[in-house]
């Protein structure tokens, strides 16, 4: 099992993501200008400020050569994880539903929040249980998840809401407390919190490791 972690100009969390992946499997960096994934089994689109986040967060990165390869990989059922800016990029690329708007409180936020696992029957969360509480940090200026009401109902009905902010922990005004969503097929997942910053007790929590562990290990037979 090998992770490929994308590096855009302006990425800043790709090394933490790489280190987090390496706790559970092999991992290497993928350059944004490189139109291929070098045989990665799962792709991580990390946090940061890709291409300066000009125009809108994530808007320009989706046109990079590596993202064309990621889109093809995703269309063929490949596993793609987007964290923070990576989530914004995947939404802009149309690989995930919805959009991320500026935080309702207008401030950039950096704090530890509690999340609840809503769907544990996914390749990203099978090492967790439904209702598990995870302590993972957020750090973003535009993390307010938005989708039109009908789309939110669809996401709910199809189990695409994977993580919610725990009651009282929604930091940014995200609709329905959504912290992370998947596409309908379940192979692309994006979240605003940073699991890669929560893999070592040194930084207070290792709950984020569950996501990398889930990807690295086969789900136990039911």
């Amino acid at each position, binding site marked *: 099992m090998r992770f490929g972690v994308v590096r855009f100009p302006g990425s800043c969390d790709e090394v933490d993501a790489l280190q987090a992946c390496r706790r559970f499997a092999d991992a290497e960096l993928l350059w944004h200008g490189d139109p291929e994934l070098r045989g990665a089994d799962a792709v991580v689109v990390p946090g940061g400020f890709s291409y300066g986040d000009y125009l*809108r967060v994530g*808007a320009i990165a989706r046109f990079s050569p590596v993202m064309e390869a990621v889109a093809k990989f995703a269309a063929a059922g490949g596993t793609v994880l987007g964290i923070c800016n990576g989530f914004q990029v995947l939404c802009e690329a149309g690989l995930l539903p919805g*959009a991320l*708007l*500026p935080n*309702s*409180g*207008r401030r950039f936020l950096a704090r530890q929040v509690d999340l609840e696992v809503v769907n544990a029957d996914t390749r990203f969360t099978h090492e967790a249980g439904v209702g598990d509480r995870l302590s993972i940090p957020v750090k973003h200026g535009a993390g307010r998840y*938005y989708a*039109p009401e009908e789309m939110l109902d669809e996401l709910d009905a199809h189990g695409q809401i994977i993580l919610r902010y725990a009651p009282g922990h929604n930091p940014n005004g995200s609709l329905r407390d959504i912290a992370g969503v998947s596409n309908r097929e379940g192979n692309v997942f994006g979240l605003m919190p940073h699991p890669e910053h929560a893999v070592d007790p040194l930084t207070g929590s290792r709950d984020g490791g569950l996501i990398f562990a889930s990807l690295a290990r086969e789900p136990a037979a039911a």
Partner: protein
Amino acid sequence: MPRARVLIRPKEGILDPQGQAVERALPALGFEGVANVHVGRLVELDVEDASRVPEMCERLLANPLIEDYEVVSIESHDQDAGLDAPRR
């Protein structure tokens, strides 16, 4: 080349924290009687084929899920037109 000017604004009904911040700041300066403040973007561009501007809006300049766009003018500009001249 013709110059196009596109206004992009948050879709109606979507929380606009920037607009709210400006709306709250104006009375502090003594400007009363201001409501419905929204902050958007202005994109100006010289284009060979102005008929393609709406497609540019749909695919990049705006995100149609959260933003409305409006092409407010397309004009052939004069090199000496001051503010309308492209910045070099």
